[in-house]
């Protein structure tokens, strides 16, 4: 049973460029959340997708957008990259956290390390 997989694992971009990160959730999971983890900090919630719609959003600008596909996989897009966007981007999958089968537990991928120069 494959867990959460993310790609790419590492990438380097320059300021102003755009980046797309991809995530495949754990088998059986229907909810995908994206987190940004800056160096020395805890993961910060970006947004969450359920049934192909953005259901929750954290305090991130509109430069951060996402998508969820019918197979529950997801993409995170960041436009007009800034130096401060350099971070580890974590994808986490779960069952619907508001649903009756919710355990509250998120399963994380290994992350995509983005460096903006």
């Amino acid at each position, binding site marked *: 049973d494959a867990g959460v997989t993310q790609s790419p694992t590492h990438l380097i971009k320059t300021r102003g460029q755009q980046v797309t990160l991809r995530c495949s959730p754990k088998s059986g999971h229907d*909810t995908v959340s994206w987190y940004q983890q800056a160096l020395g900090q*805890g*993961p910060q*919630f970006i947004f*969450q997708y359920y049934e192909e719609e953005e259901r929750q959003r954290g305090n991130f600008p509109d430069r951060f957008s996402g998508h969820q596909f019918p197979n529950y996989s997801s993409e995170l897009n960041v436009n007009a990259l800034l130096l401060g966007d350099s971070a580890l981007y974590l994808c986490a999958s779960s069952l619907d956290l508001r649903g009756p089968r919710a355990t*509250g537990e998120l399963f994380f*991928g290994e*992350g995509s390390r983005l460096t903006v120069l």
Partner: protein
Amino acid sequence: DQQVKQNSPSLSVQEGRISILNCDYTNSMFDYFLWYKKYPAEGPTFLISISSIKDKNEDGRFTVFLNKSAKHLSLHIVPSQPGDSAVYFCAASARFGSSNTGKLIFGQGTTLQVKP
């Protein structure tokens, strides 16, 4: 505003002794708390959780204690082993009726080093 705080960035203990990691929260709507462990170059992995209707949950060497009146929880690892050396994150969620419903709010993490 930091709703979940881990005030100790690091902790060092001797193998075989107890490790106690602490976490404080401010939002009284939080009703579910989790601890995650993270090794370098890996994503966080779930360790143990506790619902707000309990004050203690135990799983092997790991025990989480919740003090709702103080808005404080702690993770006890007994006995500590060198393989426990990692970054530990506390996280909280509100499963109903809150803007935090459906998402986890993480603390900054505590780096635990267990010395052989």
